[in-house]
């Protein structure tokens, strides 16, 4: 077959596939256009999961009839002033979205330029552009997309269910809404209407918008993050580890206001939460990274979900550090959801006394004779009700501390402490485990790691790229006790391993590391291996549940918790204590 130039409508359809992958990507492009046009109010209506109709209306600057005619042409944009692709401050710039949508759907754009007294409309159906006609519109632009993908049936087949597509559209708008609290969003999908009212661009505004997006309890369960280094600034809100979720959908990442799903950043986020979360739990966070547009390449991916930093390790380091700082600062806080859950759980569903009243005896029925005889032992087997009341005087100074003064130990497991405005229940084992763990971790950092030199150095065969990545990090790995060097083509030679690991499988250790580095660009597995051992030791050396503590010991534990970083959760991410404010207790008794 001879080589030939493809006709333009085919080219457009191929390109459309890259930019417009599903209804959500069309919505993303259109809403970004609205934001770039300076709108303060954006309304999105979709039906049929966006397949039947997507309508985006804004109150932005609008377009005059010439612009309208040009905007649906490929590579036509108003957003790139000069030809400097390195200096991009708008969300869009490629000039591909509208023609791509036009190539795959029935597109209609009505727009009225600000200050102009007339609106115009242009239509594109399956790549065929209509003439410009006068139309009616009070301000801004209204884009309607009907029958998306009717011209590319292959794409249509791969769409998910209507619900899944609707959810994807909402997710896209959520991300954009988080980035721009100063724009009001309204989404009407099927019967549902979601509104994000106008908020300020300051800290309070961002927090309010985050609460709008994530849910009401987000505000109380997040800590602000703010750090800057060498012209890169990271701001936002990080969820407390105890407020984690089972999927990564509540992680919102922005680079210069652009929502991204970038591997470097996601890796950094994991790094920041490294030993605070159990595997399988994901943090809730919204992080905004701001840097000179010239330091980041957003033109990596047609949908712009990935970016490339000129100095990824700087950004990574900054994010990890910022998260760790923010979280250790807020460490003495455990999720308030704990108290909320407790209150809702404890609230009597019906008045006590009624519950078993008419059934006669509330004592459970006992079967055979043997069981009756056995019953006598039950009280012995029950946990002791001994509450170890406060024998030591309660000091006012202790009461004023965050975790208060210990008043009692219940079931030899829980310490009940009184604070000025509430009470705190501490799980003694979880709390002490964390304290011991943090100590070990500090010792590892401060004293360095002793290494066992190998008698027979282990040769580990790897891809060349993995070898390069490992060797580039040899210094960092050596600090963690793993000494390796390149060994000819596609192999590394392991000379020393951390003594803490004992007789270890160097092959697997290095392979895991290489894979992890390739994906996340950090050496977390090794660190995690070491800390896993540290945490096993710490579990061993911790006060167990079931041990009686003297009042002095309880107070000492509480003070130690206040001094320890991340004392709010145990090594597995469970809370170590729950705080009940007087307010919560009053709610329990219906006083509020």
């Amino acid at each position, binding site marked *: 077959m001879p080589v030939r130039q493809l006709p333009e409508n085919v080219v457009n359809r191929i390109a459309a596939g890259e930019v417009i992958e599903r209804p959500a990507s069309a919505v993303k492009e259109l809403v970004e256009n609205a934001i770039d046009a300076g709108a303060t109010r954006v309304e999105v209506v979709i039906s049929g999961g966006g397949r039947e109709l997507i309508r985006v209306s804004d109150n932005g600057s609008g377009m005059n009839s010439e612009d309208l005619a040009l905007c649906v042409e490929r590579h036509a944009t108003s957003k790139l002033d000069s030809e400097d692709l390195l200096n991009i401050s708008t969300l869009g710039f490629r000039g591909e979205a509208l023609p791509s949508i036009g190539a795959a759907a029935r597109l209609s754009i009505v727009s009225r330029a600000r200050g102009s007294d007339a609106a115009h409309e242009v239509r594109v159906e399956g790549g065929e552009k209509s003439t410009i006609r006068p139309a009616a519109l009070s301000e801004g632009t209204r884009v309607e997309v009907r029958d998306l993908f009717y011209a590319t049936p292959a794409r249509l087949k791969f769409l998910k269910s209507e619900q899944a597509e609707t959810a994807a559209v909402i997710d896209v708008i959520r991300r954009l809404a988080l980035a721009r609290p100063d724009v009001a969003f309204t989404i009407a999908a099927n019967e549902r209407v979601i509104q994000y009212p106008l908020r300020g661009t300051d800290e309070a505004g961002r927090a309010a918008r985050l609460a709008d997006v994530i849910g009401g309890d987000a505000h109380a369960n997040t800590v602000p993050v703010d750090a800057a280094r060498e012209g890169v600034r990271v701001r936002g809100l990080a969820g407390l580890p105890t407020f984690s979720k089972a999927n990564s959908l509540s992680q919102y990442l922005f680079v210069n206001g652009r929502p991204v799903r970038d591997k470097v950043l996601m890796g950094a986020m994991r790094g920041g939460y490294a030993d605070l979360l159990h595997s399988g739990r994901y943090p809730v966070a919204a992080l905004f990274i701001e840097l000179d547009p010239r330091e980041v390449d957003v033109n990596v991916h047609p949908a712009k979900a990935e970016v490339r930093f000129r100095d990824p390790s700087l950004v990574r380091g900054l994010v990890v550090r910022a998260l760790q700082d923010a979280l250790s600062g807020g460490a003495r806080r455990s999720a308030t959801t704990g108290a909320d859950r407790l209150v809702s759980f404890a609230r009597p569903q019906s008045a006590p006394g009624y519950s078993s009243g008419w059934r006669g005896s509330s004592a459970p029925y006992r079967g055979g004779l043997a069981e009756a005889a056995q019953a006598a032992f039950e009280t012995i087997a029950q946990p002791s009700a001994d509450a170890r009341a406060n024998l030591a005087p309660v000091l006012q100074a202790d009461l004023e501390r965050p975790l208060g003064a210990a008043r009692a130990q219940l079931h030899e497991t829980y310490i009940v402490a009184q604070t000025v405005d509430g009470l705190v229940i501490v799980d003694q084992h979880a709390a002490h485990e964390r304290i011991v763990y943090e*100590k070990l971790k500090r*010792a590892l950092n*401060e*004293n360095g790691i*002793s*290494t*066992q*030199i*190998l*008698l*027979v150095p*282990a040769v580990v065969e790897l891809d060349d790229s993995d070898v390069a990545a490992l060797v580039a990090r040899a210094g960092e790995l050596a600090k963690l006790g793993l000494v390796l060097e390149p060994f000819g083509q596609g192999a590394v030679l392991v000379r*020393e391993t951390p*003594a*803490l*690991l*004992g*007789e*270890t*499988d160097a*092959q*697997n250790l290095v392979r895991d590391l290489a894979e992890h580095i390739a994906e996340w660009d950090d050496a977390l597995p090794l660190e995690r291996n070491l800390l896993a051992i540290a945490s096993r*030791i710490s579990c061993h050396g911790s006060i167990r549940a079931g041990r009686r503590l003297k009042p002095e010991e309880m107070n000492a534990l509480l003070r130690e918790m206040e001094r320890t970083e991340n004392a709010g959760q145990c090594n597995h991410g469970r809370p170590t204590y729950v705080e009940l404010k007087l307010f919560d207790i009053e709610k329990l008794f219906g006083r509020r």
Partner: protein
Amino acid sequence: MKVTIERAQLAKSLAHVHRVVERRNTIPILANVLLRAGKSSVELKATDLDLEIVETAPGEGKTTGSTTVPAHMIYDIVRKLPEGAQVELQSASDGAQLQVRAGRSKFTLQALPETDFPDLAAGEMTHSFNIASADLKRLIDRTQFAISTEETRYYLNGIYLHAIDDKLRAVATDGHRLAQAEIKAPKGAKGMPGVIVPRKTVAEVQRLIDDAGEEVKVELSATKIRFSLGNAVLTSKLIDGTFPDYGRVIPAGNDKTLVVDKSEFMSAVDRVSTVSSERGRAVKLALTDGKLTLSVINPDSGSATEELEVEYGAEALDIGFNGRYLLDILQQIEGEKARLKLADPGSPTLIEDMEAAGALYVLMPMRV
């Protein structure tokens, strides 16, 4: 099958064979011991598919025949029977059960037929020699501690037994340390292939060797090895792998020689290690003229030092070792004194037994 055996005899034989049977099995018959009654003896056999043990015990066979029953259970039963009891084993006519009777106790065990019992086809053995029990025990005792437990380098999970010049040599290493012991090669061992004897087999030979009498017969081929130890015959697969060229890691040019009293040194290492809490904590050795200072520093709890008078004339040297490894090796030293040949803090150290020729140990230092 019907046979009567003295309790002590049966208990002893079962004690030997039941250890080969793994506690958890996916193939039910592997949990069983095979009992085969002859006219005047009973043969007991157990296997884990890599290792097979056959032991013969005297017994009075009324009807010959065979069956298999759960090994750990019958061992527990026989163990708990009173001293001096006569144990009668009788299989049911359909072979589905075995009755164990002794005095007024009676047990019925579920049995599986012998036909399903796997046989570790030994094949032809190419080499055969007799070795003094004491010699074999020494080869094992001196090297066993250094066998690797790490599964990926499977070829280190055993003792490498091979003939070299006129010696029979055993070597084991786990990548951190190495142990070597040798004896004069027995007749018939010359020209044998180098074989890696798996850890479990080594442990079983070691347990059986005390009851084995003066000599042990060893037969081997490139894939199997068989030890005849008294009444027990142990047949094992060999580890199919290449043992590393261990000669290269035995240092030849270490010029700093330290001679130290073994028991003094061991006690000192043990004492200073008390302050280290985590495993793998290093013991530092500081060597100066005629003096050895051991120290351990544990930033969490404190530190310990101890001085020893030693024979040392080379230039001063500081070196760290894993205390556990150091003790493991010193324990193997038969004489009163140990000789350490050192080079520098990053190179292997050679430890020699001044009385037992041929035994040597290599230990890699730790970096602290």
